[in-house]
């Protein structure tokens, strides 16, 4: 287990290009705590896999350094960095038993047989693989095979970090629930630094203590799931986290008021020195907007569709040209779809050129 520092790390697949805007990973400096559970979250092409491959040593950075516990490992191979990896598809040996598969990374490193037995039985127990230890891996389902892959990634206690690259993509929803909470429990149990790459917000938010959101080669925010949800630092985070994502619309902001379509929305904080010429928007999550009967002092909207998710309903509404989502209470009904929006002022944020503005109390 190690602390990992990234120092001015950047990568361009086109060699050492002078134009930073074309970098797959723009320069970043950050620290990954020893024993932390991290998720790297973002859409395809955001640079998350590039960053993971730089940490594991599969690719060498165009510039910058990677330190494990203060020691520069940038020139070292994956093996020398002492990293365990779990990939999207199971990587196991069909001819070996489940137990032999789990033992393989330890055997390879010359761990004494007795220690291997103890560790393999511990990991097998945590992953509910104990009954299968003596079975050949070849006839197992894809799910079971991926469980073995997870076990192999976790079996060594001396690794600097365990890296997961979309490990649950091929798993059915029900088992996904089990494995996700299992991974989280394993993290609490094993004290390993874990980095989990995914484009699935639910997987990222439920697994990690710290979620690192990437967009266009940059880290746009790094924080706890609650921070990302309640206070997105960038409109992209607002959009990407949450389903539906945050509502974002252009507004005129002055002091404690935002003006949208001629209606005033009150703000909790005061915004007096917004940068001149910047694109000003307000952002509010659907969970913090209520739908009510139309009233003169409410922002008027038209309901276009209702998404019934079983445990909750969201109304898709239109405010002028802007599409908007809002949580719909069981009690609300409307015949013509006309409604008014009520905003929870504490959760209306102001953005200048897509970045959160703090405002003053």
């Amino acid at each position, binding site marked *: 287990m190690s602390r990992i520092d990234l120092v001015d790390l950047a990568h361009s697949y086109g060699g050492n290009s002078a134009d930073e805007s074309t970098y797959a990973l723009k320069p970043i400096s950050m620290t990954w705590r020893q024993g932390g559970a991290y998720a790297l979250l973002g*859409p*395809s*092409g955001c640079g998350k896999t590039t960053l993971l491959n730089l940490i594991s040593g599969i690719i060498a950075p165009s510039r910058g350094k990677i330190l494990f516990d203060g020691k520069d490992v940038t020139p070292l191979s994956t093996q020398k960095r002492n990293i365990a990896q779990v990939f999207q598809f199971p990587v196991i040996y069909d001819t070996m038993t489940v137990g032999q598969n789990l033992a393989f990374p330890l055997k390879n490193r010359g761990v004494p047989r007795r220690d291997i037995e103890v560790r393999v039985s511990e990991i097998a127990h945590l992953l509910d693989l104990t009954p299968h230890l003596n079975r050949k891996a070849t006839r197992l389902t*894809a799910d079971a095979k991926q469980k073995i892959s997870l076990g192999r990634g976790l079996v060594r206690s001396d690794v600097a970090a365990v890296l997961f690259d979309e490990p649950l993509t091929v798993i*059915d*929803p*029900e088992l996904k*629930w*089990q494995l*996700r*909470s299992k991974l*989280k*429990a394993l993290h*609490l149990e094993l004290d390993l630094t874990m980095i989990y790459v995914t*484009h*699935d*917000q*639910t997987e990222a*938010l*439920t*697994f990690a203590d710290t979620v690192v959101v990437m967009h266009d080669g940059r880290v746009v925010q790094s924080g706890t*799931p*609650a921070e*990302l*949800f*309640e206070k997105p630092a960038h409109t992209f985070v607002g*959009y*990407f*986290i*949450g*389903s*539906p*994502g945050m509502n974002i619309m252009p507004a005129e902001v002055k002091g404690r008021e935002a003006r949208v379509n001629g209606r005033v929305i009150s703000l909790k904080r005061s915004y007096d020195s917004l940068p001149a010429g910047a694109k000003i928007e307000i952002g509010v*999550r659907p*969970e913090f907007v209520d739908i009510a009967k139309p009233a003169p002092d409410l922002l008027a909207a038209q309901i276009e569709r209702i*998404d*019934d*998710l*079983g*445990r*909750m309903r969201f109304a*898709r509404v239109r405010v002028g040209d802007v599409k908007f989502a809002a949580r719909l209470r069981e009690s609300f009904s409307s015949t013509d779809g006309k409604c008014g929006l009520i905003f929870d002022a504490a959760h209306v944020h102001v953005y200048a050129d897509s970045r959160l503005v703090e405002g003053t109390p």
Partner: protein
Amino acid sequence: MSVTLEHVTRAVDGMETIRDVSLTLERGTLAVLLGPTLSGKTSIMRLLAGLDKPTTGRVLVDGKDVSGIDVRRRSVAMVYQQFINYPSLTVYENIASPLRVQGKPREEIEKRVAEAAKLLRLEPYLKRTPLQLSGGQQQRTAIARALVKGADLVLLDEPLANLDYKLREELRAELPRIFEASGAIFVYATTEPSEALLLGGRTVCMWEGKALQNGDTSKVYRHPETLRVAQVFSDPPLNLVGIEKKNGSVRYAGGVEAPATGLYQKIGDGAYRVGFRAHQLEIGKGVPGRHAFPATVSITEITGSESFVHLKRDSVNWVAVLHGVHEFEPGQTLDAVLDPDNIFVFDAADRLVASPGSM
């Protein structure tokens, strides 16, 4: 037009992949095939498409048996999980390809490609080749090609499974509109309950090659006829507890006894299993009339808008979902609370005997 499967069974090497499925699909409707991997969703699609023949039973199109008719003579389009496009052709040519094969005149091709591109928001990308597109754009190209063909039957086999979460969300929101505009029969396979709910239409719940229940999506969700249907149609997984009703009270497995109020009034004495989805389980509110169970927190998963609390009670795992951010410590004990009006009760044969709103 309509397509019917009539007591269709299909066996491969003596193993039955589809067991006695009967199903009718009407023009202009959407049917979701919901079930886990290997439940028979793809097999059903291949039978509908005519790629496979039933071992017993018949496939009827507009009442006529087509079990033996060559697939090339049927009007079918298919979209797979792994999107397939011609890498050397532009997006325009990819979409146009089925029309070129059909030998349509140029003006018609232009018109129909333009329509499909507009529907799938592909207009800006028509001159690019698939490799210059994101995964979502490539899959939209594959869907556009399936639509432009004008097939009577469009089969979509987990078309969004390989896409990014956000793209999935966006396409899912667009699909019902696309289905409505086209008027064909759509069949959509998925493993995800939330996808079925968002798409609406009707849902066929699949399990081990059988069509367990077939009906209006919201009805199947709210009144699953069997325990298995409730399980297939629950994400997070359905929570379960055994009960015994006797002399006006219910005794829960693991030892909580309570008066048989709410839906328990509707059932006779005997042993049952009670199922409840994560949002039907509350935490720590001792409201009179509710049934409380001491439980231990194993882990809390927080997404921001919701918190999933994994609980252990009497060696059984339950999941509760709460709105907003709620942190609980692993090992902490608390009360899991059930509303006897908001549960599903299944009899010894796993058939639904009571559900919310079924009074």
